[in-house]
């Protein structure tokens, strides 16, 4: 069954059926990834451009691997050292790449809404790999997929998203995805890092980290994004780590064992301490592994190819 959308711009554009279809397809790809030969030739005639206007290591590698394991040809470039630094516009940059017969674009961009803007000006399929402080839909999908894998389903589970909610595209796309799949969602952190109107999305808001951890089944800890902060939003990293950082002592003081997630990269000793990040409660590396399967599923489903079962 194809997806109801041509692009993956944000989570809201997807139906619940779309998300379930992505998960089922990712289940199959996860089997492929655990075989000795980790590739299928499904997209051998497809060219995909990974255009990263913002620095990225894990997302870019994850997409590239997903594309290569589907047999696609890939090209990747980042903004620095490209024509963008010479003043070329986004539309020109992407159209020049498409003129070389590229079928799909994976784009990360520092401006919220940039993929929506691009989708109105080009013909190729677009996958949003993160736009500004708005969304990071494949991260939300892989996070929900990881919760489903660990707890059996997402529906009815309590997920607390903790930390810098205001500057996090992971937070917003996770909220949309988790609510869509029937989870209860709470956001927690210093009030200056939580958007004033966030409760209108249907989430709970908590400023006390211990209370948030007591409430939840899963805690998704977000990175403090110092590079995005234009105003003074909290005092010092020291104070943040003391009062909002997740330590082993704090986890052990809870009445139950909760699951710890983090989209990476981790500021160890700030929002998350190493003895938590590397503990058995953490599924951070499972998230990374699932990222490849989810991205394979999204790319495959958006490509419109219909021959997966024969090749698997």
């Amino acid at each position, binding site marked *: 069954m194809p997806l109801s959308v041509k692009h993956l711009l944000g989570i809201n554009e997807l139906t619940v059926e779309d998300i379930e279809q992505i998960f089922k397809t990712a289940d199959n790809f996860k089997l492929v990834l655990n075989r000795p030969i980790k590739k299928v030739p499904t997209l051998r005639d497809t060219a995909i451009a990974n255009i990263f206007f913002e620095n990225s290591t894990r997302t870019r590698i994850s997409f590239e691997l997903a594309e290569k394991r589907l047999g696609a040809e890939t090209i990747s470039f980042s903004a620095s050292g490209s024509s963008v630094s010479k003043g070329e516009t986004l539309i020109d940059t992407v159209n020049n790449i498409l003129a070389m017969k590229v079928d799909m674009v994976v784009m990360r961009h520092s401006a919220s809404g940039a993929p929506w803007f691009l989708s109105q000006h080009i013909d190729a399929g677009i996958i949003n790999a993160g736009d500004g402080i708005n969304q990071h839909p494949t991260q939300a999908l892989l996070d929900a997929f990881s919760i489903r894998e660990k707890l059996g389903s997402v529906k009815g589970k309590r997920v607390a998203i903790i930390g810098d909610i205001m500057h996090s595209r992971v937070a917003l796309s996770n909220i949309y995805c988790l609510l869509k799949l029937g989870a209860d969602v709470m956001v927690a952190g210093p009030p200056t890092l939580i958007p004033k*109107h966030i409760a209108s999305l249907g989430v709970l808001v908590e400023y006390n980290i211990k209370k948030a951890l007591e409430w939840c089944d899963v805690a998704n800890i977000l990175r403090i994004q110092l590079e995005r902060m234009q105003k003074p939003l909290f005092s010092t990293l020291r104070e943040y780590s003391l009062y909002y950082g997740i330590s082993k002592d704090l986890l052990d003081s809870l009445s139950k064992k909760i699951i710890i997630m983090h989209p990476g990269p981790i500021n160890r000793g700030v929002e998350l301490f190493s003895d938590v990040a590397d503990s058995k409660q953490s599924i951070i590396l499972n998230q990374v592994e699932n990222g490849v399967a989810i991205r394979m599923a999204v790319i495959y489903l958006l490509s419109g190819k219909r021959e997966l079962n024969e090749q698997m």
Partner: protein
Amino acid sequence: MQILIKQVTVIDSQSEYNNKTVDLLVKDGIITRIDSVITETADSIIAENNLYISSGWVDVFADYCEPGYEQKETIETGINAAVAGGFTHVLLAPNTEPAVSTKSIIESILHKAKNKAVTIHPMGSATQNAAGKDIAEMLDMLCSNVVAFTDGWKPIQNANLALKVMQYIKAFNGTLVQMPIDTNLSAGGLMNEGINSTKLGMAGIPELAETIFLHRDIELLRYAESCLHITGISTAASVELIRKAKKEGLNISCSVTPYHLALTDDVLNTYNSLYKVSPPLRTETDRKALLLGLADGTIDCIATHHHPQEWDAKTKEYEYASDGMAIQESAFNVLWHYCKNYVSIERLIETLTVLPRLIFKMESQSITVGENACITLFQLKNETVLQSTSVKSKSKNNPFIGNKLSSCVYGIINNGLCVLNRNND
């Protein structure tokens, strides 16, 4: 040159013919006769069904970008847009390059606008080069018929400087025009802060950025006992603040843009940069409060905030796109379409004619025999569509292009010239 206008309904509270349908004769730029029927011959006869006449309309805040940004608009193309929009008088913002900060720049603008059907009033900057640091040579600029002073899109942030400007202009009955934005509170913001900015993942500009600034300027005004005009208020709280300040008897007036009366931040759901404006589009509650404020007299006049941007400046990622709408030529169509259920045509015309002339100390105009013919002709039809091909402005950053709107500007007579619109259907 004689122009006979047949069976036209007068909308002019200062005219004895208000609400009457009459024939009107203009001879050499003067209204020479008004009667129920005039049978005299004329060089030109205007006879249209459902035609209305009022004094020429005033736009109290527009940007024609010359000198410095001629790729967006020039005095000439701006005047063409004003004619198409029915405006006979336009107050220009000083945010040019260099800024309108000296008598010589004002005189060069006036020179370019000479012998046109639209009268241009360049507003001088209140601070030197509109940089918000030192007081500009306002007395010198006054000699060039400047009616008001403003830093335009860059309102004065320093409270002490704003106070000094308010005090300085008292010597010559000047008016300070401020756009209500506290740039510390709006910093980084891309749209109204609220449910929609949260949903769209965009940094918000809180209502507070406007109301704090307005509060401050009202306090400064009370202290300085000067004259202040706030251009482009956008929130319900601002309407209330102005209402209170007026009740108190302060010399304050304000204007609203057509797009704040028409649109809310709901239109931003596809990140369309045509809707990126400053102050930002707000909520339906704010829009309703602005409409009520316009109806009850709290809001005095219309500022189109005509802000042309070339295609490249708008066709980019929302965050990087420039602010503004080039809306002057569809201003009235938008106004009547969105205001007609809240505001009478008499009241709307008052905000375009009598009130701006009073506030900015311009020569009064009236549909009266013996007066200069400073006239706007318009129709209240059901459907008008502004086609992209008939846009007169040099820029097309107007989201209302192609929309069905419910009125039409027929033409203007001003400065002895008569210009009729031919493409407005």
